[in-house]
């Protein structure tokens, strides 16, 4: 079975400060890992993914995430937050040997204040 935990329901940061949205996962084998973002009244959009190789993955809108196998984590980061980054963020995992369903976390609401 595979699972994802996003331990924080809400993250608040000031504009210009770095942000981190946490994600840990559990899978039987090696994972594919994804981050998606949901802006108000809009559908989910892909941000970035980890497949293999370099543990630091760069994605859309200046976001990046670091895969840490020993800690089974895939935290989302951005060096300098923007007010427009305020949205609902979802982490997702898919087992490489079962390239079917993706399991999503419960989501983290990011609020960036001016």
């Amino acid at each position, binding site marked *: 079975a595979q699972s994802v935990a*996003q331990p924080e329901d809400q993250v608040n940061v000031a504009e210009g400060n770095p942000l981190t949205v946490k994600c840990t996962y559990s899978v039987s084998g090696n994972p*594919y890992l994804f981050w*998606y973002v949901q802006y108000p009244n809009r*559908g989910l959009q892909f941000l970035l993914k980890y497949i293999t190789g370099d543990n630091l993955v760069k994605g859309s809108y200046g976001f990046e995430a670091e895969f840490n196998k020993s800690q089974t984590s895939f935290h989302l980061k951005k060096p300098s937050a923007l007010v427009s980054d305020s949205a609902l963020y979802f982490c997702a995992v*898919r087992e490489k040997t079962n*390239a079917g*369903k993706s399991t*999503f976390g*419960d*989501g983290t609401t990011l609020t960036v204040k001016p």
Partner: protein
Amino acid sequence: GAGVSQSPSNKVTEKGKDVELRCDPISGHTALYWYRQSLGQGLEFLIYFQGNSAPDKSGLPSDRFSAERTGGSVSTLTIQRTQQEDSAVYLCASSPFGGNEKLFFGSGTQLSVL
């Protein structure tokens, strides 16, 4: 169309009625997914179709829920004898092959059961 299309965008029904939700995936995408997003909750996996393979129905919450995919393209999610706890946003997503590919989401159908 260019993206995943879902219809209707909103559906209000009475308890006990049947509803059908439709998803048109991106042309050429062989993988199709249904998820449910309840208020304040994460994405709950419902069902996954991949090409001509038998679908993964492991996420369907009860036998009132069923889904089919005709001709490897359009999918219909049917909920029979709706209950108030079925109220949620039902999201459809597609991807080219599954595997390590990202998901492309539709805007969802907001289902309200009165």
